[in-house]
């Protein structure tokens, strides 16, 4: 494995719940302060903030500045990149670049939302704002967003490769199994195949159990320079992102994504192969997504993602532990879940994951797909052991 390009020195989450009773800015500030403390730093050490424009700090038009103001910080680096659920991981990549250029020393990447408390979303989905130029052309058919796009992807995957409802459910069963070992997960009961089969259809073939939670929650990750090691820092050895379609109408495919590009690139940069990966954190807004990502990242042949999960490889004790905190399907999903992928990978690679700790995972791969058009934005990050 190649030497690190950056270090993650601190991580924290706050307010993960179905109704936090707190504001998004307060949760963001709490996660930020906890991540700084986790790194053994003080707020004075931090000179960069990255808060995605989708974080619903109110009114969220300048979220990084809003958080800096709230915390009384003067920052030299401000990033509000919006790439859907992938935003926080894309912002980690940007932070690595900025630190390497010497524009700043330490960047806090923060995401926060209280969308469950605000009852902004439902399984029936929400619609893009009327102001968006593509909305009048996506909307009339009544496709719910974002589940409908994932339902179309799942239906096509089943048609092309014979993926089954039981295999989709296996992703949820895997996540729910891991969540029973995570005291911070919001759904900690295991899911049986019978329960999955009885789950009501929302947008076929996806059922309720195929959909992520809708929760409150905030997360923060502190990114520092490669040489800024601490006893508990985790190195980032490779990263890659790729952005394609904004609308499902422009998607070249709904069964293959640009994860097929970012995964090999990030692993190549890190000097590791697929066989070195001991842990994956894959974005799972809907069960079809990890199945496609496992294929595109190279963990199995195209079309075999369903059988791969159904065979139990992603479960505790399996050869590729996946979404060990319970993922977006069981841990939490306050919108842009990407930040929680990085937090859990760091906890696992530090060996601090408690009852769900994977024995010696060595190298972890985080991958987020975001944007709502079945992975318009793709980002892969490879992390190594401490130091």
């Amino acid at each position, binding site marked *: 494995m190649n030497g690190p390009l950056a270090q993650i020195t601190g991580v924290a989450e706050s307010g993960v719940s179905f109704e936090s009773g707190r504001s998004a800015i307060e949760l963001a500030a709490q996660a930020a302060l906890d991540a700084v403390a986790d790194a053994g730093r003080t707020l004075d050490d931090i000179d960069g903030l990255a808060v995605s424009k989708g974080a619903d700090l109110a009114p969220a038009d300048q979220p990084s500045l809003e958080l800096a103001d709230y915390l009384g910080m003067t920052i030299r680096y401000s990033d509000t990149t919006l790439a859907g659920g992938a935003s926080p991981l894309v912002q980690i990549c940007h932070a690595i670049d900025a630190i390497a250029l010497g524009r700043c020393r330490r960047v806090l990447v923060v995401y926060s939302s209280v969308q469950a408390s605000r009852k902004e979303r*439902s*399984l*029936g*989905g*929400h*619609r893009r704002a009327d102001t968006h*130029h*593509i909305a*009048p*052309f*996506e909307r*009339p*058919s*009544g*496709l*719910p967003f974002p589940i*409908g796009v994932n*339902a*179309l*992807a799942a*239906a*096509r995957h089943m*048609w092309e490769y014979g993926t089954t409802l039981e295999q989709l459910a296996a992703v949820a069963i895997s996540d729910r199994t891991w969540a029973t070992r995570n005291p911070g997960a919001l759904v900690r009961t295991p899911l049986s195949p019978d329960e999955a089969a009885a789950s*009501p*259809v*929302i*947008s*076929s*073939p*996806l059922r309720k159990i195929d959909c992520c939670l809708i929760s409150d929650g905030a997360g923060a990750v502190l990114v520092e320079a490669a040489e800024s090691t601490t006893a508990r820092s985790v190195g980032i050895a490779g990263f890659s992102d790729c952005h394609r379609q904004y609308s*499902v*109408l*422009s*998607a*070249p*495919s*709904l069964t293959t994504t640009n994860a097929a590009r970012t995964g090999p690139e990030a692993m190549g940069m890190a000097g590791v192969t697929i066989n070195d990966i001991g842990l994956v954190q894959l974005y799972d807004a809907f069960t079809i997504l990890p199945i496609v990502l496992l294929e595109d990242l190279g963990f199995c042949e195209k079309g075999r993602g369903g059988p791969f999960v159904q065979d139990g490889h992603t479960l505790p004790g399996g050869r590729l532990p996946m979404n060990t905190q319970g993922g977006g399907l069981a841990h939490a999903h306050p919108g842009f879940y990407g930040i929680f992928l990085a937090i859990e990978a760091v906890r696992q690679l530090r060996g601090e994951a408690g009852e769900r700790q994977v024995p010696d995972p060595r190298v972890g791969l985080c991958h987020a797909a975001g944007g709502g058009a079945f992975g318009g934005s793709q980002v892969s990050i490879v992390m190594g052991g401490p130091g």
Partner: protein
Amino acid sequence: MSTTAPPLHDLEPIEVAHCEHCARSYWYPRRLCGPCNRTTVPRRAVLDGIVYSLTEVHRANVAQREAVPYLVALVRCDIGVSILTGCADVSIDDRVRVGLAPIPLFGIIPYSLKHPNNLEHRNETRPSEFPRDVAPPRDDKEGIE
């Protein structure tokens, strides 16, 4: 309540933007062909295409809540545009004809009906990936003016 399909001959033409330089078409309509920087021309036609994927919606937004369950198809039209359409009684890889039709609770929307020659098509080779990324423009450099 499911939607009732209109008769095939009632489908009204859909407007797409067409670039006469690179032969790309766009739905939604736009004046500029981004890849080759030329002005597009509007074209109105009932389109033929293939159902790429299909979902039956059981939980919907406020506007269509009374219509559930209803079907939505993502159709890849022969001219190279994808359109989200209402439909009834079609399946993935079916050959369809797409046009505008008034659908109760939805308004005037793109709607897919099974193509008259659907059965012949089903014996042909299955379509592969969407051709937009594959078909190169006739001359890329010429487009930069």
